[in-house]
């Protein structure tokens, strides 16, 4: 159960960061958001 709560939190954070990345007008800030996204998406891709 704890595992799926954790995955749920990761998915929510990922969605929020993607939304922020889309809204963000400055390219360097977009890249910063992308750096935050990398480990979160990597974790989601390894769900089993």
């Amino acid at each position, binding site marked *: 159960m704890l595992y799926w709560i954790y995955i749920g939190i990761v998915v929510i954070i990922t969605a929020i960061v993607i939304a922020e990345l*889309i809204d963000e*007008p400055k390219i360097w800030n*977009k*890249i910063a*958001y*992308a750096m935050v*996204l*990398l480990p979160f998406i*990597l974790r989601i891709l390894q769900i*089993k």
Partner: protein
Amino acid sequence: MSVLMKKNIIQTIIILTAVLVIDIIAALDLIKMHHPDKLYPSDGLSEIQYLSNYNSRLKGGNGDTEIYVFDSGKPGASILLLGGTHPNEPASFLTAALVLENIQVSTGRIFVIPRACNSGFTCTDPFEGCPEYYHIQSKYGERRFRFGSRVSNPLDQWPDPLVYSHFPSGQKLSGFETRNLNRAYPGRENGSFTEKVAYAIMELLKKEKITLAFDLHEAAPEIPIINAIVYHEKCEELALMAVMNLEMKGLNYAPELSPINFHGLSHREWGDYTDAYPFLMETSNPIQGRLRGKTNEDLIRYGKSIQYQQAQETGALRIVYKADTGEPLERRVGRHLQGFKEIISVYNETADTGQMFEFSGLPEYDEIMTNGLKEYFQ
């Protein structure tokens, strides 16, 4: 749509695509680590069991792992050989693999678990820069083996507490140790992931009435307990006799008595909770050390490090370290194997008929040093 908006959308698509491509490449690499290395048991193999036979809660998960059983069918001692308790200690896994690929048992039976902490083989330790694999030559070509993590994969056990409280002693250790199999004994049937694995091994020891149990390890050259045999107080005589015999063969092992109040370790809890005589063996492995320098596959294979040569010259090491020979895998596997054979040999000298463990097919230390590991792997 304004030009600025268009630019923003294009930038977003490019950045998100780049993130996805990088993550998919990395994820594929990480998922590859979940495929266990193929092993080729000798024709003396009786059956392959699984740890989940001893704790059903492990079934279908990363904690479940193969137990290779070689049963002579003739009454005798039951032996347990554990490799891969810490998957970043390759001589431990390789010695168990060499045993299961070569042994022929004529009296008694042996249970070999090459990947005791199977979960640890599915990742590497963060921030250590260790290679994912190493290669050795075998009779029929090159074989590739995983270099894993000291502890269970956080994907299997998360989060780590700030302080790990060992069950049942209540001993406090750093939170990281909660995923360390060799701090988890005797474990719990429904405890943490690592405790479940430890519990299954304890159940195996009890149900199969194991007589002698071996847990193979490696440690950094600067750690005081290296090139050592750690033993429980109830098998002191056996351990000291074996160390003496090994000394006469030119191999030095430090006999180390298991501390009574240091809990969670195999040499303590196996001895306290079961009838088995436990032994833990350590060799010197430079890739685990803080002074190691360049961290690559050569360091795993040959154990050569200029930094350790300098440390030896300043007297900071307990072992003799030579830059020209290093600490090669052959020597480390050879030492484990010779220690294992010598303890069994000493045990057989004192065992009653019908309580012995007799076997063939395993090389001597000198043979491994002369022929290399190649001769003993399929």
